[in-house]
């Protein structure tokens, strides 16, 4: 119950913050033009909370930080609304120890799909997206008795659902300009990813004993709430 109250307060604060930004700049309304980006590229950071028990073997806390590279292109425009196609590649790694054994988790996440945008003012738009996602994870554990590193590698299919806002921090005021614009973007949402089994085995050719049996550390679900903060360049 306390957690829901906490999230509720955060949600209210976020809405209030967005409203404050909107009201302070409402007088700037003018034709959007190139404020609705034709193409856009972003570089940022994605911070996810991975509550899965399977993640405990690789990290002392639930956060997974990934570098995030995104591209997008507006495909439809209608007044303040626009529809873009966006895609992200998120990559991050987390390493730690499990009962003294070194562990590491590498996660790639590729998501692509539609994003709906609404410009509150030319330099600020809010957006929401639903992006089908593919994730590839490689979990590894240094096994001192086996004398080898064990791996569990998986592809899995999921989806990201997020909403956020972008604020132009550099660019011409006029929508007629075709010069690059720089945006700061922040979004939050939930990444769904089904759990995969953490069954770790040494690679063929390793120094592990013959017929080394898989090590089952349970399951790992890389889904959870996430935030992404990025800087984008649009044309």
């Amino acid at each position: 119950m306390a957690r829901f109250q906490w999230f509720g307060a955060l949600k209210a604060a976020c809405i209030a913050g967005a409203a404050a930004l909107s009201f302070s700049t409402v007088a700037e309304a003018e034709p959007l033009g190139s404020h609705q980006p034709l193409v856009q590229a972003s570089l940022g950071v994605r911070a996810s909370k991975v509550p899965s028990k399977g993640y405990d073997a690789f990290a002392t806390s639930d956060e997974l930080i990934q570098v995030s590279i995104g591209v997008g292109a507006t495909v439809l425009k209608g007044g303040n609304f626009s529809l873009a196609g966006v895609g992200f590649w998120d990559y991050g790694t987390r390493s730690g120890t499990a009962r003294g054994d070194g562990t590491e988790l590498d996660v790639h996440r590729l998501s692509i799909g539609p994003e709906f945008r609404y410009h509150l003012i030319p330099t600020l738009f809010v957006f929401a997206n639903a992006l089908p996602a593919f994730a590839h994870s490689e979990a590894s554990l240094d096994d001192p008795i086996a004398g080898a590193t064990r791996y569990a590698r998986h592809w899995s299919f999921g989806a990201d659902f997020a909403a956020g806002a972008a604020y132009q921090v550099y660019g011409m005021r006029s929508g007629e300009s075709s010069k690059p614009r720089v945006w700061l973007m922040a979004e939050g949402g939930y990444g769904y990813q089904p759990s995969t089994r953490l069954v770790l085995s040494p690679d063929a050719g390793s120094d592990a004993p013959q017929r080394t049996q898989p090590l089952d550390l349970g399951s790992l679900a890389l889904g959870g709430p996430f935030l992404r903060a990025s800087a984008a360049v649009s044309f």
Partner: protein
Amino acid sequence: MIENPTRIWGWAACALGLVGCGSRASAWDAPFTPSAGVTVSSSYGLTGSVAVVDAPLGRVLMLRSPSALSIDSVAFGLGHDLATAQVSSDKKTLFALSRGVQPQRSASDELPQLMLIDGSTAPSVLKSYVLTEPMDNLALDPQNEWAVVYGGSGTVVNPNELVLVDLSQDGDVAQTFKTLRSTGGKPKRLTFTPKLAVAGADPRRFLVVERDSDIVLIDLSNPVANVVTVPLPVTENGQTGTSAQIVYDAASATLAVRVAGSSSVYALPLGAPAQPDEAFSVAPNLIDVGGIPAAIDFMHTADGLRLVALVGTNAVLVDPVTTNLKTKPLSAAFTGIRRITAALDATASATADDVALLYSQNSTTIAFLTLDASTSNGSVDSYDIGVSVKDVIDVPGDTFADRKILETPAHQFYMLDLTKRQSAPMETSTGLTLQVAPDGDRVWAYEPGGTGFASVDFSTLHPISLKAERAVSSVYEIEAADGGHSALALHAGNGQGLGATVVDAVHPSTATARFYSGLEFGGVK
């Protein structure tokens, strides 16, 4: 272009709040370290599972075999601050004695307890007895009727208090607190007798408590009754006598005590009660056997019961009733005696003529001692096996009950067939540790820290040597859930985790062996 940086920080705060923080269970941060204490072993072999003490997490990992060559694990908390653990004589139950949280700061702090864990193919916690005070020592009844905890470790300790736990009962009613009258000593060793046929009373079992200068007899049929304390005689050089060995004869309800450093043995026939409030009486009888005996035991003969004392190269036969002595010359100075009558004939009555195996740590000869009517003074069949015997290991089960394993201080051990009186030496390149399979079909030998291990089948005496790919810390054979048998060669080292090489115990081969590691992660959440 950023009009108000504080608004950006507001977004960042929102972001951090949404992602939040979480921490994992502390168990992930505790490296596995095999227990290496005096009173707690790193592992225990049971009939259907191997118990591995995971001391950093205060738990035991029960490794079991669903089928031959496969293993999995289940973990049970052992209680806080494990004092000692032992396996029952039938290898079916693990007893774990823990001290609990000391000192207790809150009502929720764990109390001392004695936990019983089923060691079958489906391990489970059978029951737990909560104790009021932390205790350090545990003695188990070979018949699994009693457990005794003693030797407290609290701020104030009553060293002569025993807590007798009736294993047939649950809860507090199972515990009987017994304080022995102090004569300056404290319990050193506890012996549970079988039912002794006490004259004038029902057969009953006794707990014999050896202390520094006396022994105490507790009637287990009525543990709250008064105990009987028997002071031990001083030795010939005036020192306080201490017990070195306790033996008993069930049919005559007679105990005998070998007194360390003394040429006297103490016969303690238990008789009809002398007083109305007594359940039995003791009539101590000090018998000088003419020299300091290395070992004693009772033997039944056609002429009646005799107490055999091995003195030098003689067996001194003592009639415990008349205290008359006879001396039987032996072929060597034997230091150990083991009655093997039941091993030779499981149907033999309690008073059948006995056969004893004599062995020595100082001589390479073993002998079979028989005291029967036909040979009057008895016979001694001696065999020179070329090496002294450190210990005699019994073989469980019925199939090879007439076999013994002679453990030697050298790099060999002997498989002894009592019926055929044949011994088969098994030579090794290094000193080995022996582990008999719970069903008694074979023995496993290994060198802790080495990679070699082997099995010897009792039916064929054929050794099969195996070589693991990692250093072996111990080897156990367990019954698999599907009826097969698996042998587990454990690999455990400080900070190295826990692994096992598993072979089919019946047809052991490294060509089919499977290697498991990361077993220490079992049950960690």
